[in-house]
Every structure is written in C-alpha cells, then in structure tokens.
C-alpha cells in the first residue's frame, strides 16, 4: 500500500504543483492518476521514489515513511517505467534488463538468467537478448522497459505514461499484455496517464486530478462513469459514458437464437436455404464465425472475400458492452455470440440486450463504500 498524507509540492516561484494530496494506492492493485497537463500527476508519481522531494506531507509505503529511507535503496525497491522507456543505448537488451539486479549485487550469471526469463515474460523472443535498443521498435523497447522494471521483483511499480508514445494498435496490445501480466504478478502499481480511456481500461481505481494538484475524485472506473462528482470530472470523462460503463458489467446467460450456418464453398442454393431475413452466417470447420453474407447476392460457391466484414463478435458471459456492440454492428441486426473457444453458439438482437440493461441498477454509492 502507498499512502499520500497531505503531500504538497510548492516551487520557490509560488507555483503549487501538488497541494495537500491525500489518497491511498492499495496493495496489489493498479491506481491510475489521470488529469489534464499541469494537474501534478507526474510530480505526484515522482515524489513516491523521491525523484522529486515533496515540500510538505508524507508518503508511506506500507508502514515506512519514504522520507526516512535512503534514496537509492528506496528506488532499487521500486520498478520505474517511463514514457520513452529510457533504455541505455550502449547496453544490450539483456544487460538493460539486468540493471537493478546488478546494482543489488547479484552475480552476472544470475542477473542474466533472470533477465532472459523476463524477456520471455513480456513476450519478446530470446533472440533479442544480444540486440541493442536502437534495433527494436518503440513498442518492443517499451516491453523491455517493463521487463527492466520487473527485474528485481519489486512489490511496487511506478509507470509514467508508459504506453503513450506508441501507435494505437501497439498501445492496445501493450495494455492487454500489461493487464495479463498484472493478473499473474499482482504488483502495487501507480500509473500516470493523460488518456482517460487508458485510465478506465487499466485502473482498479482511478484518481482524477485537476490543475494545481487537487484530487477531484477517486473511485473505481464503473462508479466514476456513473457518478462523476462535478462538471470537471464529467467533462474530463468525455462522451459515451453510459455506453462505456457497460464495459464493467458482465452479461447474464441470454437465451440466444439458433442460426443455420453454412461453410465456405457453400452453393447459392445452400445459402438461400439457410438464410433468414436474407442473411446467412458463414463459419469455418470448428464453427468459428467468419462473416455474414447476403444470400440473394451469392451467385457462386462462397469465397472469403465475399463476406461482410463489419460485424463484431462477443463472448458469452463477457461485458454487456461487447454484446450490445455485436448486435449493433451486425449487418443482419443479429449479434454473433461465441463460446470461450470462439465457436458460434447463437445470435442476439439489440433490444434483448437493452431490456437486460434497463433491468439493472446503476452502481450506487453504497456499493462503492462497500468496495473501498
């Protein structure tokens, strides 16, 4: 657990970067600090490992006051990931990852073995070990940055906009893998971002800061979307809050509509026979959905390039948002549902999903307090 106790950072010219900030980042969870530029989120993060010294208040890690600890000792016990990774260009990937273990006095062989293990853990091939940072893409460098921070297995990690310098597709991959990794490791993480979507996707708890380092609201993402405390938080959360909040609601066992499907290579007659309202779903040999096709337009055996590519697929039991999106995006208006193996199980229509949503209560204050 990391605890901020009335922490302030004032500069001699009178600027208040952070003002009397008090909050807790619980053990084993991701606490995201989010806010517009100048809200003091990075300053707050950097005060935890004393890259910036607070001018008032105390920061506790578990029951230790960080201001009483030796600076370098403190930092070696905290994983630190920054925006552009900050890899050492003159060292190989494996030497970069082994930095903190070597500082802690591990022998070379043990540090390298650990580094190789982490390289695999963050999804990079072992062949990268002897390469140099300049030979890697931005996304790969960022993975190395994460591996390097994890090398000495610190209980606490600080991450300062680690994924914001890579393109959106890679960012999404890195976020997903980061969540998977955190699922295994359960570190206490403080994560800074200016991107509210990232905050909501990654955070167990999200702290919205406003300019001048004031905490505007701290809550879990679903609650935040449902109950922004004021206009500032509401504006910062942005549009589509109701729709986005559905990401945090699991779907019940809907009764799905059975569909007749056809395989690739089916003839126009087979397609016409299986179609309902003019559309038929094409699946592969293991019944994984490939795409919809309009039976009236099938003039020859079905080939992959003839399929409609607009629809999304949702997993049974997954978030309501995905189920609703599958229905809304389907050209046939019938949302495609699959099981955990990705095999087609049935379809659902938007009004059925909406009926379920209307039945539900929104997350209320009592729930929030129970969770906190």
């Amino acid at each position, binding site marked *: 657990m990391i605890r901020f106790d009335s922490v302030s950072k004032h500069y001699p010219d009178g600027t208040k970067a952070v003002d009397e900030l008090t909050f807790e980042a619980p053990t084993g969870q991701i606490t995201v600090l989010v806010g517009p530029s100048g809200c003091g989120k990075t300053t707050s993060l950097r005060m935890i*490992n004393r*890259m910036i010294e607070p001018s008032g208040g105390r920061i506790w890690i578990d029951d230790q006051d960080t201001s009483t600890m030796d*600076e*370098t*000792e*403190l*930092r*070696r*016990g905290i994983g*630190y990931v*920054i*925006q*552009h*990774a*900050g*890899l*050492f*260009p*003159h*060292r*190989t990937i494996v030497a970069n990852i082994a*930095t*903190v273990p070597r*500082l802690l006095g591990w022998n070379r062989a043990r540090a390298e073995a650990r580094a190789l293990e982490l390289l695999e853990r963050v999804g990079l*091939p072992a*062949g990268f070990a*002897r*390469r*140099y*940072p*300049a*030979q890697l893409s931005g996304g790969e460098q960022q993975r190395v*940055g994460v591996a*390097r*921070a994890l090398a000495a297995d610190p209980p606490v990690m*600080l991450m300062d906009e680690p994924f914001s310098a890579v393109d959106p597709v890679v960012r*999404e991959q890195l976020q*997903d893998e980061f969540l998977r990794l955190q699922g295994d490791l359960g570190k206490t993480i403080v994560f800074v971002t200016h991107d509210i979507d990232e905050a909501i996707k990654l955070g167990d708890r999200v702290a919205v800061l406003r300019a001048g380092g004031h905490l505007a609201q701290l809550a879990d993402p679903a609650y935040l979307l449902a109950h922004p405390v004021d206009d500032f938080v509401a504006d910062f959360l942005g549009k589509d809050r109701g729709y986005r909040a559905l990401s945090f609601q699991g779907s019940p066992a809907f009764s799905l509509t059975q569909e007749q499907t056809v395989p690739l290579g089916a003839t126009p007659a087979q397609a016409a026979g299986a179609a309902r309202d003019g559309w038929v779903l*094409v699946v592969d040999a293991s019944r*994984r*959905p*490939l*795409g919809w096709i309009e039976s009236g337009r099938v003039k020859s055996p079905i080939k*992959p390039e003839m*399929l*409609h*590519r607009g*629809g*999304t*697929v*949702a*997993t049974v039991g*997954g978030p309501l*948002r*995905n189920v609703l*999106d*599958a229905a809304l995006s389907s050209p046939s208006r019938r949302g*495609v549902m*699959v099981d955990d193996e*990705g095999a087609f199980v049935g379809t659902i229509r938007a009004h059925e999903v909406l009926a379920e949503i209307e039945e539900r209560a929104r997350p209320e204050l009592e729930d929030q307090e129970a969770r906190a």
Partner: protein
Amino acid sequence: MINRIFAWLTDGAHWQGYDGIAARLIEHLGYSLIAVLVAALIAIPLGLYIGHTGHGRFLVVNLAGAARAIPSLGLLLLAVLWLGPRFNGDIAFLLPAGLVLVVLAIPPILSGAYAGVEGVDPDARDAAKGMGMGGSQVLRHVELPCALPLIMSGIRAGTMQVIATATIAAVVGLGGLGRFLIDGLAVRDTPQTASGAILVALLALSVDMVLAMVQALIVSRGLTGRYKRVKTFDPDAGVTPPAPALQHVA
C-alpha cells in the same frame, strides 16, 4: 622535384643518427602523445563534471570559441620569452613548448567530453536515477559510455592539432619533424623541407587511423549502429494467417 624529394626520403643516411628521420619521428610522436595525455587528464574529467552537473557551462562554450583564435606560433614565442629565462638547459624550451601544446589540445577534448555527456538521452539518465543509481554510477555506467564517441572525436581533433603544432616547436630549437622544415627553409634545401612536411602529414594520418581503431574497439556497437548480424530462424516468416472477417471484441 618529386624525384628529389623521393631520393631524400629514401636515402638511408637521412634515417639514421640522433638527427635522422627515425629519431625525429619518435621525438615528434613523444612530444605529441605526452601533450595529448596531459590535456586529456585535465579536459576529460573537467568536461564530464561540467556535463554531469551543468556547472561552468559558459567556460566550455567560451573556451572552445576563443581557442580557435589563438595564434599558436605567437603563443609559443610568448611562452618561451616568459618562461624560458626561469629555467636552465633543455627544460627552458621543452616546458613552454609542451605547455602550448597542452593548451591547444584542451579545448577540443573538453568540448567533446562536455558535449558527449550533455547529449546523453535525458530519458536514459532519468531511468538510471529512478532505478537507484547514485550520481557517480550514472556517470560511470551511463553518461561516460554514451559520451565516448564524442570524447574520442575530441581527442582525435586535439591530437591532429598537437601533431601539426609540434612542428613549429622547432622554431624555438626543439627536435621533432619540424627540424627538417625549419632547417630546410634556412638553407633553402627544398627536398628536405618538403620531406619534413610530408612526414608530418603521414604521421598525423597514421595516428588518426590508430585512434579510429581504438574508438571502434571501445565504443559500444549499440551507439555506432554496427551490429553483429544475428541469424535467426523464423518458421512463420512470410506466412500470414488469414484474417477472420469478424473482429472479436476484446
């Protein structure tokens, strides 16, 4: 003319003795290496310190600019006139000449070391600190190795300047390859003068080549971009799996 120069250079008698080519070459190299070594011992730590702390940045900027305007012959004569009378024997000439060479070699080495540290990726420096390196560890493990290419170019530039300037040390009576130039001029022996010039040029080029090799050896391949080619077998290369028509919502 060329034949006469060639004849002068290939005359075995010119290579031998205390005032032969071989001896002068060694003298010249000796003066130069000592001067560069002393200059490096002063300039590299100072440059690293200024780059690491940011204190005294103005010193580097002004010194490097001013040094280009120093007339080396004038400085040499001034040093001999000022220091010469205070010492006896050879040292009366060696010391002032050596001093001038050191003074000339310091600015390029100093600005190389400073610029090298200054130019280190701020993110790398931040990460190093954030992972728990102390100030001297950041300097030794990150800043110095990253600054090496620029430190080496400073040393090479300084060395070139010293080898060239050591030639004029002959004006005040010292040895080195400058002797052939100065003495040749005095007696209008053109082949000897030209040979002296050629020898200085060849010496400068060979020393620079040696330093270039040292640089290639000590600078990390990660900084130079000369990577060892790693052959890896990728069974998936060239095979892209067919994309499903429906995109799965994560």
